[in-house]
């Protein structure tokens, strides 16, 4: 009764949390910079990181590279490895929020920049400090909405 026949290779669970911690720090910088060009550029750095995370998994981001090169060699080996798909889903959520903020900011809606940074900050603090798994909380809701819209298949109850 154990799960999934095709499970991708596990990753060190501390990696995504380190990535989230760096993301939180950059979000704070964006908030402190306000609504100007400097804030926009810093937000773009966040967006780029998330885009890499979606494309290659959190280990493929530049923060992930820093973790592997500088942090992990100083840590004991992990007790258990983690599936890379949940953190990758979290990167997708981050990309959606920060991408929307960047787009609105480029279109001239300055306040969208700190709003997006604040949302990313909350999510990344929850991930880094509490180990919250955004995928676990949001994925099922998304699936329920999607199947409702396309007309649900299977048993209705």
């Amino acid at each position, binding site marked *: *009764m154990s*799960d999934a026949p095709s499970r991708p290779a596990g990753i060190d669970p501390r990696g995504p949390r380190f990535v989230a911690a760096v993301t939180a720090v950059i979000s704070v910088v964006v908030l402190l910079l306000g609504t100007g060009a400097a804030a926009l550029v810093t937000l773009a750095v966040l967006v780029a990181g998330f885009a890499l995370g979606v494309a290659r998994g959190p280990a493929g981001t530049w923060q992930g590279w820093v973790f592997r090169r500088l942090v992990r060699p100083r840590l004991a080996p992990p007790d258990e490895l983690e599936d890379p*798909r949940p953190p990758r889903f979290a990167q997708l959520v981050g990309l959606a929020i920060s991408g929307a903020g960047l787009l609105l900011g480029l279109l001239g809606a300055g306040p969208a920049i700190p709003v997006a940074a604040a949302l990313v900050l909350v999510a990344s*603090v929850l991930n880094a400090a*509490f180990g919250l798994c955004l995928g*676990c909380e949001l*994925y*099922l809701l998304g*699936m329920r909405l999607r199947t409702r819209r396309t007309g649900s298949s299977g048993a209705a*109850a």
Partner: protein
Amino acid sequence: MSPLARVVLVVVVLGVAALLGQWWRSRNGRFTPVPERVREAAGRPEPPHADRLTPADLGAPLGARATFLQLSSEVCAPCRRTHVVLAALAAERHDVSHVDLDVADRLDLVRRFDVMRTPTVLLLDGSGAVVGRMSGSTDRRQALDALETLPDGSFAG
């Protein structure tokens, strides 16, 4: 916005994240029994549309005393941890079983029991009636406490 106001904003956002994190953490694995009134109605000889699951619903036999029905998703690391805890419990006890289903395959159960997050664990008694549920990462102590709530349960640590 003045620099001071930006610093205050950062502090407020961090405070919100901390409160959310505490609240989220306190919910994880907490057992919520089905109210007695509902249970009595479901316990009548022929319950009208009882929250009672059959082996056919599960695709697996029921445990003689209890079944942990776990609903998991692919993008969910706590689901794996909870799986390990519950599978170990079921392996130790001949009258307890553990069934782990993927929400993507069983949206019927997700809707029927109004499951919002993964993992969600429904605790079934020996007849398949749902007596309570837990959601979020669930540890061994919490799972044992949930078993204790079953009538004529004599589960020791």
